[in-house]
């Protein structure tokens, strides 16, 4: 069972499909649960601990709007934990908690820069597209299941072939991600 990051981070369809095919979806609702059910924290908007801005700063610079950093303090740890990812392009609505386009772009950038298998699909709008969507996701997740015993996966296709890339070891991958985060902080105005 691998931890699969999904975008949109609160998607019902993706969370269900990932769970259905035997993996663990990394969803923002679990992060929110920690914030709103912990009795030591008050109700929103005062449920932020001094640790949260620090977590946000690991992914976005101090000049970046507080909303981006706040969102990244919840979503960033999920990206760090992710062992695979499914990104859906053009989801139907993007507002509310997932409505910040800058956060979404940063999130996708961080996922793509991490050396993990990623599936990018378009949000279905017809029956045929839905069939294609479900089939692609099922194949991707089944390949992940087959390969979960292997040392490394091919980040392009999620196939079970042994991946010989720069991030052959997980530690190296993490160091690389941290470096990219540093460079990203400089890039974002």
């Amino acid at each position, binding site marked *: 069972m691998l931890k699969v990051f999904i975008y*949109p981070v*609160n*998607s*019902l*369809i993706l*969370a*269900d499909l990932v*769970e*259905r095919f035997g993996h663990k979806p990394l*969803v*923002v*609702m*679990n*992060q*929110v*649960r920690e*914030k*709103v*059910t912990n009795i030591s924290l008050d*109700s*929103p908007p005062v449920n932020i601990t001094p640790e949260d801005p620090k977590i946000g700063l690991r992914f976005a610079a101090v000049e970046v709007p507080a909303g981006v950093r706040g969102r990244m303090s919840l979503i960033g740890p999920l990206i760090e934990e992710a062992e695979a990812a499914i990104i859906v392009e053009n*989801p*139907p*609505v993007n*507002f*509310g*908690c*997932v409505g910040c386009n800058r956060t979404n772009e940063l999130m996708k950038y961080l996922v793509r820069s991490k050396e993990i298998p990623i599936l990018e699909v378009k949000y*279905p709008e*017809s*029956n*045929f597209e*839905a*069939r*294609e*969507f*479900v*089939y692609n996701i*099922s*194949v991707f997740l089944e390949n992940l299941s087959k390969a979960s015993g292997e040392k490394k996966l091919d980040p392009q296709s999620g196939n079970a072939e042994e991946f010989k890339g720069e991030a052959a070891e997980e530690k190296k991958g993490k160091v690389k991600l941290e470096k990219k985060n540093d460079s990203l902080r400089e890039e974002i105005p």
Partner: protein
Amino acid sequence: MPGKSHSGQKLAGEKKFMKAEKEITKIIVISSEKVLPVDAAMKIYESEFPVTVKETCFGLIVTGPETDVLQVTEEIRQLDKNHIFVKDRGFPAGDERRCRAVRGGGPRPGFHFLREEVKMLPAIGEALDELERKGPPEELKKQKSRLKVSELERIIETELAR
């Protein structure tokens, strides 16, 4: 034996005191022709799991200890497995910070995206049925090839004829 049951109760109480299990909440969205939210709710009441159930327009919200909720959702999913969808929820059922009864009406935050996704659920359910029945869709089996000139001409003609 009364003594045995008493010690059993005591042990259970101690266990509860020692470590309270984490409470989780799941949203069960029902897009089935066979199962209604009320059927699923009745199934949970019959099962006597110590969970809180809230029936909504799209399905159910179930809150309770993690193991119980996971077991309940799995049982409900088996009623019509390709047409019942489950996702996590951060806030417990009926939480005052989200419940419409306290906030003065209007859709609760997070409902809009769910509503958009619910529109696609029948197609996703059908796709799952088909995948289970037949395997990959027929159209996907065809290999990609360049567009033929005759095919392009036909498309242009149909477009111009509009």
